[in-house]
């Protein structure tokens, strides 16, 4: 089985990171190919159509739907101010007129002679997107956005909550096995992207939000604590929209799990540097994992060789991602092609790995992931 393939998370000291920054609707791109940008630079902007309100004019005037056009003082497309009179009944002998005022500032979207309703639209809502990472514009998508590229230290997590944010990296524990508890969090961590160890408690997470920490990267979290922190159960793993005042990135999984030594060392080595992080996770189509990106100043993408993804082979370093050996790191010794019977009685494809303490374990091939550069 030369083609066995198990996706792994990227933990790379130096790689090329490319980010596409697209507007939700067509708009204006503000930068050019070759521009060197800071993460906060606005790269494109547009206007989202304003909210709309309906008004039952026929009902308010006591006329038939087909007649409302006769009473309108404004046409479709006309701007209106809040409380401006937009329709008026004729009244009797010029008296007892009823006037209908606009409930909002905006414009008249439609006047329907069929429903007797008019739709008013509020002014457009401006939307702008930034570069997200320090880097260079390598492509412009006309009226839509840009691609920004940087040579960066790049660490992917397995699950996260909260969206994009930027800040300075700060390590807050000594070892990858250390938990993040409230006592390691103080006011000095305001606006920081903090690197923790094996688990974060609910109390620590609440304190992190209180002191204004921008993001926390940690090995694990107890699901019960996450549920209490969010206030609801996560159903399908599509996250990133949470507004809890912090972006949280889990690198290993749920429960107490030491952050992989490689990720911990790498993130510790960039302490004090500026990072862009995003907790957005989507495990279904269009897979998205949370990420920590630390652009390396002065590095050029041209000189960097990026390894093509490959299949699992003997000698590869893997991580076990399922009980009962969850979290152990090992080296692939053998990939026997025959199916083997495991404890459950199932016949599956297996592999043999040697763990860091020298022990050899045979386990389902589906339960390991490649540690990728």
């Amino acid at each position, binding site marked *: 089985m030369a083609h066995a393939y198990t996706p792994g998370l990227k933990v790379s000291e130096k790689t090329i990171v490319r980010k596409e920054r697209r507007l939700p609707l067509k708009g204006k791109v503000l930068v050019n190919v070759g521009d060197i940008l800071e993460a906060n630079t606005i790269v494109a902007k547009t206007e989202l159509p304003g909210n709309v309100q309906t008004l039952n004019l026929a009902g308010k005037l006591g006329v038939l739907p087909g007649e409302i056009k006769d009473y309108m003082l404004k046409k479709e497309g006309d701007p209106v101010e809040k409380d401006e009179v937009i329709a008026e009944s004729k009244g009797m002998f010029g008296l007892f007129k009823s006037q209908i005022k606009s409930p909002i500032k905006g414009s008249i979207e439609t006047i329907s002679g069929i429903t007797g309703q008019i739709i008013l639209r509020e002014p457009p809502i401006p939307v702008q997107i930034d570069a997200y990472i320090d880097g260079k514009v390598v492509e412009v998508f006309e009226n839509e956005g840009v691609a920004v590229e940087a040579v960066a230290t790049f660490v992917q997590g397995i699950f996260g909550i909260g969206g994009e944010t930027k800040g300075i990296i700060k390590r807050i524990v000594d070892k990858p096995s250390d938990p993040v508890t409230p006592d390691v969090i103080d006011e000095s961590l305001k606006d920081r992207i903090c690197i923790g160890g094996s688990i974060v408690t609910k109390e620590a997470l609440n304190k992190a939000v209180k002191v204004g920490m921008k993001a926390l990267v940690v090995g694990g979290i107890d699901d019960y604590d996450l549920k209490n922190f969010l206030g609801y159960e996560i159903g399908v793993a599509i996250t990133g929209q949470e507004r809890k005042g912090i972006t949280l990135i889990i690198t290993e999984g749920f429960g107490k799990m030491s952050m992989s030594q490689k990720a911990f060392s790498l993130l510790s080595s960039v302490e004090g540097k500026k990072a862009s992080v995003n907790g957005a996770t989507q495990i279904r189509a269009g897979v998205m994992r949370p990420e920590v990106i630390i652009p390396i100043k002065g590095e050029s993408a041209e000189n960097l060789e990026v390894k093509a993804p490959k299949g699992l082979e003997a000698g590869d370093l893997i991580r076990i991602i399922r009980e009962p050996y969850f979290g152990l790191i090992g080296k692939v010794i053998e990939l026997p092609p025959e199916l083997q019977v*495991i404890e459950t009685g199932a016949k599956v494809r297996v592999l043999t790995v040697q763990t860091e303490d020298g022990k050899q374990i045979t386990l389902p091939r589906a339960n390991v992931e490649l540690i990728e550069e």
Partner: protein
Amino acid sequence: MNQKNDLKRIIATDCGSTTTKAILIEKRGDEYRLVVRGEAPTTVEAPFEDVTRGVLNAIREVEELTNTEILEGEKILNPSNEKKGVDIYVSTSSAGGGLQMMVAGVVKQMTAESAARAALGAGAIVMDVIATNDKRKDHERIELIRRLRPDMILLSGGVDGGTITHVVHLANLIAAAEPKPRFGSGYDLPIIYAGNRDARKEVKEILSEKSALSIVDNLRPVLERENLRPSRDKIHELFMEHVMAHAPGYKKLMKWTDVPIMPTPGAVGLLIEKVARKENIEVLGVDIGGATTDIFSVFQGVFNRTVSANLGMSYSISNVLAETGIQNIMRWVPFEIDERDLRNRIRNKMIRPTTIPQSLKELMIEQAIAREALRLALIQHKRMAVGLKGVQQERTISDAFAQTATGASLVNMMTLNLVIGSGGILSHAPRRVQAALMMMDAFEIQGITKLAVDSIFMMPHLGVLSTVHEKSATEVFDKDCLIRLGTSIVPVGQGREGEPAISVRIEGNEYNLKYGDIKLIPIEQGKKVKAEIVPSKRFDVGKGRGKMIETELEGGVVGTIIDARGRPLVLPEDPKKRREHLDKWFSELNLYPSN
């Protein structure tokens, strides 16, 4: 593709959300048989983000196992000769992550409900239903459409010749929301109008410039009749064109196949419908996947399909927890487990969906979760399977109002003849009896019912193949696909512990079960035996309380399971007592190696 009648070798794949499965079928003599199956993880994940990688890997495994050359580089060799190539390649897919739709109709219980049924029948997730009597304000409806960003909207409303005003109002709301599709700004959102034909002109004026509008026949042309097929077909067509085409690598895959790729649930449904028609029986089929659980049924000759979009064993496993609650999952676990530990295990399966249970305890936990996913999916199915008669539904107005209020369902577990289980957790259960009991527990099967599983999960492949070459699909289905597990005999009723519940006489042997007992009687596959079944006076096996039934039982790889645990199935509240019960039942059936 070679001439249809001249197919010698067939390769078929199903790209599931977790695994891509390939099967090779060959004509040997006069008959078609399954040769081998290969599989590989579905590669929508980084770094490949291309569904065809998984397809190639699965086909390469087939090549290795059969020593037959099928690929030349990344091209499928077609046509075949003695040693290499295939004559046709077909595929199904559910790797796009599902179709998410919003539906709208004038009256919630009438056209809006019909629209929801059409969308569900086509395999969609219905994100929300908008109706003029849904008690929302207009701005709330508009906000909802904007926020949910569906893949597609189905707008219905009004019988032909009926209200135009309300339909136009709904169209205006949709237009005002300027909805954008989930997959970015590159294309217009598909909207299907299937309402009052007299409002078509107005709807077109309002929506044609702001969306990709399609108009089909009214799905409720008169109050007494539904006509869902045109809407379903259009949804299917737009799904392939707009939504699936955005799954990574999908455009390439569409070029490789000889016939259009079918959504996995569509193909499975097709096959189950054929089985029911052929044998003239009532069938319940289930396909429990990583992201979704689909239920198919044929009751009183009526085919129904529902898709429980967020009930599955990997991507959606956490949603099973969210919907049923941790206690309902823990009640099926036969050992003591800390709630926090169980929660974390479920979440870890969600974030690493391709892993499999290695230890027995992990297997038991997954099978406990599967019971709940299946149970919830059947509840949803019962709610929607209310009286569709194929394409058209004849119903009185009062029935139409009554259906939601009473939930009157076509699904009748007592008259059900055959249950077919499909999907990894059932098809790959290490012991077949595990699949049998999971289905019996989750569906609370009643009376006398045959049980089967899709042997190695090839119903989707055979479903799509049957659209172009029925002979090969039918032959492989009969001989290689369906594994007959046996028959379950389940008296309905409640008793007191230790009280006699049922007596079954098979080939001169008499089996007397007390309330709370379960028993497995091996009857080998292919064998049919006469049985005399006598429930005690509190119990019913189909003909009424205490009424005897003489019938023929079909054997299978498991045999006959007599289940006198009572229906509804009630597990003891006390955790220790409950575990003792589970232990007893599992041991009796020799469910797990340690038992």
